[in-house]
């Protein structure tokens, strides 16, 4: 009888494996470590779609959010565009700059994208792809948070949400004092 009662333990043999698989959810595979974090951000000088110069150095002293996007990047870029616009409007007076870098895109499609979401922060095409290479962009969208001294402090892969934007920007603003 004692032997028999032990058979009920058989199903428990599977638990460690199932637990390990469950653990997999806790691991964030989006968390691609960027060697650029805490390094000075690469400078760039592009011409925005509205025809103005867009230079990173011009915003030294402000917290800068550099967002890499493309009009063909659906749905993530379409999801985050209103988020960026909303937060840019909320934060611009507090010393925050948002810059959009459009990569591997056709200008007319990109213009339509900007119109569709009535984006008011500057957006520029990265015609040679040099900026995205400098920033080690894997795919779009990716967003870099740069502090007032010009160092990259955080990288976000995937669509930016209100939470992410506020958390990162508030942290950098608080530092700046």
């Amino acid at each position: 009888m004692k032997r028999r009662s032990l058979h009920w333990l058989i199903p428990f043999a599977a638990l460690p494996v199932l637990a390990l698989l469950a653990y997999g959810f806790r691991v964030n595979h989006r968390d691609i470590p960027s060697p650029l974090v805490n390094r000075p951000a690469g400078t760039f000088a592009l011409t925005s779609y509205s025809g103005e110069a867009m230079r990173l150095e011009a915003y030294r002293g402000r917290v800068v959010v550099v967002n890499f996007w493309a009009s063909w990047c659906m749905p993530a870029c379409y999801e985050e565009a209103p988020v960026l616009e909303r937060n840019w409007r909320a934060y611009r007076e507090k010393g925050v700059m948002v810059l959009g870098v459009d990569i591997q895109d056709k200008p007319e499609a990109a213009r339509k994208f900007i119109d569709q979401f009535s984006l008011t922060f500057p957006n520029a095409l990265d015609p040679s792809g040099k900026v995205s290479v400098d920033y080690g962009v894997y795919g779009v969208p990716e967003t870099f948070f740069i502090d007032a001294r010009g160092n990259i402090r955080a990288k976000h892969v995937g669509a930016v949400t209100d939470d992410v934007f506020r958390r990162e920007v508030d942290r950098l603003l608080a530092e700046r004092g």
Partner: protein
Amino acid sequence: MIPEIGYGMVIVAFLLAGYGAVAAGVGGRTGRTALVESAQHAALGVFALVTCALLLLAYAFLTFDFSLRYVAMNTNLATPYYYRLTAVWGALEGSIVLWAWMVALYTLIIVLRHRHNAREFYPWVLTVMLSVLAFFLLVMAVPAPPFERITPAPMNGRGLNPLLEDSGMITHPVALYLGFTGLTVPFAFAIAALATGRVGDRWITLTRRWAITAWYFLSLGLLIGGWWSYHVLGWGGYWAWDPVENAAFMPWLTATAFLHSVMIQERRRMLKLWNIGLVILTFSLTLFGTFLTRSGVIASVHAFTQGSIGMFFLAFLSIVVLTSLGLLAWRWEALSAEGELDSVVSRESAFLLNNVLLVAATFTVFFGTVFPLLSEAVRGVKVSVGAPFFNQVNIPVFLGLIFLMGVGPLIAWRRASRDNLRRNFVWPVIIGAASAGLFFGLGVRSTIAIISLALTVFVAVTIAVDYLRALRARRRMGEALLPAMGGLLVRHNRRYGGFVIHLGILVIAVGVTGSQAWSLHREATLQRGESVELAGYKFQFDNLSSREAGNHFLVESTFKVTNGKAGTRELRPAKKFYPQEQSPIAHVDYHLGLVDDLYLVLGDFARDGSQATVKVQVNRMVSWIWIGGFILTLGAILAILPERGERRKTA
């Protein structure tokens, strides 16, 4: 309207499947046939609904209905109609629809075939099939809805992943999923056997052809996957031990073990517990594979996009594993073996060893696949084990399996006599050993290659010995040669189907061995007109041109290949630039041969076309893998045909 109609069908089908699962179970428990019949109607209804859902999705793709998020994500106006059809199952949501449809189809076939001939199991089989269906329909309703509406509907879609624009993508997932879902049927019967306590060999007899059919489709899916990898991905190989490949390979290994171990149960009434355990393991591994490819838990090159779907799969996998093992524990006494092993030198023990090796291979593959997760959980570091680990561990196992492939079918049951051994194995051993010397004499220096090829010869000779002996017996009975040859295959189709499958596997083994041992490659940067030599072939860079080609921009190079003998050949490796993709896709150009495959991949190039980097490969004997696949197909067809003589003879 399409999103709402489709979504409605999914919900109704889900409710119907859930109802049917419960009704069949209650009907089976209480013996109320009316309930089982009602569940049967539910199963037919689910099949009709899922079929309509699949057709509706295909219609949405054909008509560019971008109001469906799934359509917009996976097609655009430039996608040709045949890729719009394959896009139906090209990504996560659609693959689940196809999956569910196949389970529904199999359920329909069960209703048609086993309604009367498996009365004792039927209600429980329906319960399991409908539960699995209900789960997949739940996935279609909540975490991965194919009929989700996107507002506002975009003017154009994103487009299909260019790597999936290939004919292999029509057949590869279909074959693979037919295999995966087909394995649900033996599982359903095993659970029914446990639930009813009828754990004898009836359920095995009923599911033998199901198991071999599913096994065949799984094999085919793996082979087509290898072919796709070889001619599309452009890294020159057909198997990379990627987690997703492993996910499909593990159930193949355990299903192979099952196909062999059932024979012991049929003849010797042994291994009841083992067989049920194998079926449960196999089905769990198919779910694990789906979980792996769709949860994003383990990073892989061809993982689907991720989401909460992983949680659903893990929950379902847990329910399946825990319930099955619980039932197994409950029936433990009834599952204890009746027969005993008489001798180590017997067919039982050869098959048993084959099973042990296959399961060992499964565990090493499983371990290697989840290793990154394990190391992160235990040590906090992300580490993966690569191809070297899998090769090192598995090559000896596979060599052992090839050896047993020669021994198992010919050695006697119970206890092999000296006479039996001499009659069957003297010639194969002599010829096999002689071939090892021959290969060495021909200049083969890799020990593994020599062992592998000599074992292959050994097994091939055992098959020939057996076939010729049977043929001679028939000739003595006065049959003419050709009818005797054909008659053997047809009358003992199960046995000779198995042999033909073994031959197919041998040919594949030769291909794998040859390609691993003798393939050559080099990279070179060439000015226009320059050439590079490899394995006696001269590859001359002639030209580089570019043009718009349908939905992408194409940069194409031209290489002239000569090998000293007559005839030149032109190969045109290219790079394709798709607007929706970050990096260009290499388009491999190749020439397949029985021994040498010429294989060119274009690397970087100068914009003015004056210079190009190219990877040149001469891959050896890869074609044997695909030929082996054809032989395997013939064998499988033979083995799947209804049985004729075998049983009567040896029972």
